């Protein structure tokens, strides 16, 4: 099956600087994460995919069409970072406007808008102006707008940034539903939290260059030194932590968080089970977070920096010679 999105040797230059340099990515069905720090080129790549920018060199195809063409645009649903809205519109009016542009008939549109508003849990706010909405609610209006024409591909630029935990959870639920419905999702983030749970494949960008790509777990397995970590957030006083450390050795680190402590341990199922049991037996109030990509991300960046230091060293030697 041909990939939904094909990016071949794509570079983008702004006034002499490369925002992207020789990127090759094929994205098929499923969810794909673009990860990298600010300035890595994620947003530039997304804008190229949507036809908002043109590549300096290389080619991109969306379902076999040129980005920005009506055919390509009909198959994508785009949600940009810090997206603007027609503030005085209600979600209903906003969705109707875009439904018209996508050529939906009136009856089709009414049914679709009702369905979407329910899906993004905004049906009770359907007649409130968007200007009164929180960031999380706006993001949900945005994803509903991206879904209005039921596209094959969703391109979401930093969709989770700035969302509170509840908004984040709601948004992840929508993405999971879309993924289960067989849609292709491409999302970018500089925050790594939750990307490992939603993404089948990730690509790590740094300064416009692809430095790693693959399934998060495969990358973890192949990355020497990188490991899965598990965090326990303890909402308890410090004496609990002292007792825990005494009873169970092997905890990597703990940091103070508002209202308690966070323990981080390396991927070690027996140890994880031991800690869990201890917390349950001692009736400690806690929550659990699993980080796969955080450690991979750090590992890849450290490796990359190490390679650069070696390269610089070699260049220095060459100059001396």
């Amino acid at each position, binding site marked *: 099956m041909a990939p939904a999105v094909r990016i071949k040797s794509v570079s983008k230059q702004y006034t002499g600087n490369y925002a992207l340099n020789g990127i090759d990515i094929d994205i098929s069905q499923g969810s794909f994460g673009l990860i990298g720090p600010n300035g890595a080129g994620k947003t530039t790549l997304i804008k190229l995919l949507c036809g908002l920018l043109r590549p300096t060199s290389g080619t991109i195809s969306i379902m076999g069409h040129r980005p920005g063409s009506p055919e390509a645009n009909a198959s994508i649903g*785009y949600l940009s970072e810090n*997206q603007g809205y027609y503030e005085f519109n209600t979600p209903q009016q906003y969705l109707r406007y875009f439904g018209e*542009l*996508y050529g939906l008939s009136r009856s089709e549109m009414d049914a679709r808008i009702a369905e979407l508003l329910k899906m993004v849990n905004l049906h009770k706010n359907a007649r409130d102006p968007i200007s009164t909405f929180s960031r999380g609610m706006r993001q949900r209006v945005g994803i509903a707008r991206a879904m209005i024409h039921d596209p094959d591909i969703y391109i979401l630029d930093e969709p989770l940034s700035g969302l509170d935990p509840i908004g984040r959870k709601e948004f992840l639920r929508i993405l999971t539903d879309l993924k289960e419905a067989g849609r292709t999702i491409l999302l970018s983030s500089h925050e790594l939290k939750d990307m490992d749970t939603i993404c089948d494949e990730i690509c790590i960008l740094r300064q416009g260059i692809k430095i790693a790509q693959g399934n998060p777990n495969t990358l973890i397995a192949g990355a020497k030194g990188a490991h899965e970590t598990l965090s326990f957030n303890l909402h308890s006083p410090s004496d609990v932590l002292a007792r825990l450390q005494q009873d169970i050795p092997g905890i990597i680190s703990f940091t103070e968080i508002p209202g308690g402590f966070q323990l981080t341990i390396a991927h070690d199922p027996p140890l994880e089970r031991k800690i869990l049991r201890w917390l349950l037996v001692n009736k400690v109030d806690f929550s659990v977070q699993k980080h796969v990509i955080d450690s991979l991300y750090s590992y890849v960046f450290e490796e990359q920096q190490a390679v650069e230091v070696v390269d610089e060293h070699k260049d220095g030697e060459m100059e001396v010679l």
Partner: protein
Amino acid sequence: MLRFVRSEFSGLIKRPAFLMFLFLLSLVMMFQLTYNADRLTSPMTSLVTTPLLLSNIMTSLFMAYLASASFAREFEHRTLNILLTTPLKRTEIYIGKMLSLFCLIPIMTVFNSLYVYSLTLSYGLLPDAIGNMVPYELGLSALYFASIISLTMLISIFLRKSSTVLIIMVVFTLISAFIGLPAVITSPYGYSVNYGFVSLLPASTMVSGMLVANSYFVVEGGLVPLQLAFLLVTVILGVLLFRRSELWG
């Protein structure tokens, strides 16, 4: 594209600003009607000239406001990116936005015609010298509004800031109007009504000297092709720039 024009147009006429503008304009013209009638030596001329001239200045400023709001504000509010990812071609988006604004022009023409009609109901038929010119004035005004919209959209592509675009258009309109004043004053034909409108043409900033020197050219509508050319050039330039540039990126 027709659906887009329809959506945009219905959005424009539902704006409270549009209804407020029509209300304000009605008040201004009613005031002119009662204020001028018994004070000027040539009341019928001034009853046609002044309110319609004022209406044209106000309408052109309002059109500039709407055009800057519908375009530069899309840049400012980061909504244009989303519009550009719909299946509409860029040319369709640009022309569609422009056409939806053009659709307001007949409303303003009807509004001005109603004023002239109410004038005849109140004060009897207009003298031929003025009455014959009215359709011509209304046509020129319509052409002028179209040019203002097109020019505002063209400037919006460069500036992307609606307040700056609006300030430029206000200055431009007022300069055009004042440059044209000598033509009104020195009119050998006495058809000041005509000069009042022609002086508002964007092209008049360039050819105001010609307006004064060659009144016959103006009265006979010689500036219409010039104005059409101005409109056409701004539309073509706007479309080309909008299609080619990455200003929204």
